[in-house]
């Protein structure tokens, strides 16, 4: 149980740190690298929550395919013209202070939150791939088929939109 605590805090700090760097960087490629770090930390958190299938799927699809697509597009577009201004809404101060206050309040809530009365049940059962697959192909078979159709449409749409006329 103590391992769960230590690993959760390490991964949570990594995740939040990388996410802040994503939003703060000037260069989008470095931002993408930090986002990959954030995704890897999230995969570790899924492992901590006893979801190994989802952790590997997260790395395989999000970190290994989607972010590669992002980095690829950024390299093809050659976006190294520096902006004169990186952030919007720099002038009105009140919304920024409210947002910052909300964020700091959330961080304090994270650090000071108690585990009880919402503790996790102690069974520690992790769902095997067989169980997830059975559920996926029986109860959620219709969304599954729809998702495959969605992917086909996205593929065709991506090709059509990005083609040179």
């Amino acid at each position, binding site marked *: 149980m103590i391992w769960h605590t230590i690993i959760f805090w390490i991964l949570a700090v990594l995740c939040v740190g990388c996410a802040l760097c994503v939003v703060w960087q000037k260069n989008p*490629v470095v931002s993408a*690298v930090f986002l990959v770090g954030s995704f890897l930390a999230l995969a570790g958190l899924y492992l901590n929550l006893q979801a*190994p299938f989802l952790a*590997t799927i997260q790395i395989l699809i999000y970190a290994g395919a989607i972010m590669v697509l992002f980095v690829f597009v950024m390299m093809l577009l050659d976006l190294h013209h520096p902006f004169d201004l990186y952030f919007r809404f720099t002038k009105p101060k009140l919304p920024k202070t409210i947002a910052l206050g909300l964020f700091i309040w959330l961080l304090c809530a994270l650090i000071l939150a108690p585990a009880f009365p919402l503790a996790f049940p102690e069974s520690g059962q992790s769902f095997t*791939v067989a169980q997830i697959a059975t559920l996926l192909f029986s109860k959620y078979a219709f969304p599954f088929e729809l998702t495959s159709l969605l992917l086909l449409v996205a593929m065709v749409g991506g090709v059509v939109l990005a083609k040179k006329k």
Partner: protein
Amino acid sequence: MTLLNFTILAAKVVLVMSVLLSTVPVLVWVERRGSAFIQDRLGPNLVGPFGLFQPLADVIKFLFKEDPIPIEAHRFLFPLAPLCSLVPAAVTFAAIPFGDTIELWEKTIVLQIADINVGILYVVAFGSLGIYGILLAGWSSNNKYSILGALRSSAQMISYEVALGASLIGPLMVYGTFSLREIVHLQAGHWGILLQPLAFITFFISAFAECNRLPFDLPEGEAELVAGFHTEYGSIKFALFFMAEYLHMITISALTVTLFFGGWQLIPGLTPLAQWMGVATYPTSIGLSLLQVLSFVLKVGFFLWIFIWIRWTFPRFRYDQLMAFGWKILFPMALMNIFLTTIAIYLKWI
């Protein structure tokens, strides 16, 4: 997680990583002498007997060379890229079983670092992270040849990753489990290649493209792109890329052996030898475990030699031929394999 379990795990990690990292110099020597043998010349034979200390001389050279960093290169990503290439290649080996159990001091130790029940997915997931090293290296070098090599290489790798993943669905259907340990146990009677020959062919060819080895070597194409994505890298950073490529080769060979050639199951001639030596009592004898590890090492070595042999025999694919081959030939072959496997399972042949 008691202290004893933790110590055993740490010992396994240290052992496997040190064996992997010390296999790389051996592989360098085998490649150089092997390529020389294929090309009817001598190869390194001056440094030590039969040139065996040549990799050591190479390492010393890399350590003492100047480490050039181009002025316009990105300060953070340029040194990070070799690490992004090396770490996934090294970590992937954690799920591969290199032996059955071994009994030491009344404790059964499984000869595998992590027996996760999504073993195949883990290996493919971390294999797909290796693309970042190449992309970031090419982009952060701020050099035309680097970025062209990086773009070509990553396009090649993602295309062949699709064929790799699809070719793995066949064995998955036959064995019914993701866990690599159970897959090796299930190959005790027949090896996997007898059940899934088409999947083996597709997997092995995609594996060549994943490792950026000839004949899919265009991203590093020496004659066309100076050195592709690692043009601007010298000394230690180049050595890290080199090491990452060999580690990736070792991992893919180990995965091929585990899925299609019986993993640590004994090579056909070794069972009579085990019985003659008197260690064939299963599962508790250390002699048998060592023979199984030896079988695994020999099989992986055989596939590494095949990697090297094919590299120095075939010419390189052209880029459009490469992409056409990956999408129009290998991927449909993998899908055809899934179709045929489904029919075979339905008719209870497998």
